[in-house]
């Protein structure tokens, strides 16, 4: 029979104004950093923000934002995402004790459906979804189950990264899904390589975020993160795109 969880996912998301999936196709380009700091920045602007970490193998946003995960979230007609730094936060780390999980694709899909069916986000201005790399179960379930999601794509100025990023962009374009644009992260030098490819596909190039050597020291500390040059560059990007 039909999967009952699918019928309530729309209900759970109905009071959310904007759903933004931070995606790339490529790993290690800064999706989790962009998701986390985007959520943090919007919350600091008094927006109602949720952050959903869908990287089940290497959840990262709790590390970046310094979120403790030792307690199960409260229950009330579902799961109430706990609030940290003004962000309603949900990640499997609340249930995995941050231990490894050997999930096959079907398990990943089950985790996502279960989380979407039981999490009560309430009303939000923005829900930010941190996606893992690839075009696998996570990305396909977000495409199929969460509509409309707008995609914020992250890349780095590398041919290897763009190899994977172009695949995701091409697929989203083929499916006529909304793409906010592409952020070029960890920019060193001034090559036009990413900008050229992106604009040739008629996708918006949103600008770059510089490589910030000191970013590592701010990881886990939200107030330090808000003071890094990363946030300045991100703010500029948000201003013209959100």
């Amino acid at each position: 029979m039909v999967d009952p969880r699918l019928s309530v996912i729309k209900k759970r998301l109905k009071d959310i104004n904007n759903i933004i999936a931070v995606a790339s196709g490529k790993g290690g380009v800064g999706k989790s950093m962009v998701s986390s700091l985007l959520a943090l920045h919007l919350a600091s602007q008094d927006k109602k923000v949720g952050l959903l970490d869908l990287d089940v193998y290497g959840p990262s946003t709790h590390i970046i934002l310094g979120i403790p995960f030792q307690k199960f979230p409260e229950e009330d007609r579902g799961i109430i995402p706990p609030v940290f730094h003004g962000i309603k936060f949900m990640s499997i780390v609340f249930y995995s004790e941050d231990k490894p999980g050997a999930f096959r694709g079907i398990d990943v899909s089950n985790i996502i459906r279960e989380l979407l069916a039981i999490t009560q986000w309430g009303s939000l201005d923005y829900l930010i979804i941190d996606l893992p790399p690839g075009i696998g179960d996570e990305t396909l379930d977000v495409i199929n189950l969460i509509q409309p999601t707008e995609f914020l794509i992250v890349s780095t100025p590398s041919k290897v990264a763009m190899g994977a990023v172009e695949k995701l962009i091409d697929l989203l374009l083929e499916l006529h899904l909304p793409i906010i644009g592409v952020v070029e992260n960890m920019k060193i030098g001034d090559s036009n390589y990413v900008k050229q490819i992106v604009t040739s596909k008629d996708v918006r190039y949103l600008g770059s975020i510089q490589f910030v050597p000191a970013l590592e020291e701010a990881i886990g500390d939200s107030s330090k993160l808000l003071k890094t040059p990363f946030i300045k560059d991100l703010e500029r990007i948000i201003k013209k795109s959100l």
Partner: protein
Amino acid sequence: MHEWALAESIITTAVEVAEREKLKKIEEIDISLGELQQIEEDIFRFALDEILKSMNLRNIKIVIETENAVFECNKCKHTWNFEKDKLDEAEAEAIHFLPEMAFVHMRCPSCGSPDFTVIKGRGVSITSIKGEK
């Protein structure tokens, strides 16, 4: 109790299916509770009743059965059943919230692999919806 959210998914789905299949009235919903998710029938029935009342749905027979969980190892093909006593309380509760936490907290009892399949008894599902055409 987070069961409410899953109970709501059952009723919402039943209503959608009834509409799609042009049933005049839903008479019975048969539900399977997979053992792995450890949902107590009483709690679940209470949540279902509350939702049915709030939606003004009456006289629907709810049949609930528990399905034993069966696992099969993807490495050595061993099959086994759910042994809750091998888990500590927090692990069992994590699996209650998210059944896939089985792949974090459980291992194949024969070869130790974390890579196995839940053949049966994962969670909440609908087995049948009966009604008047």
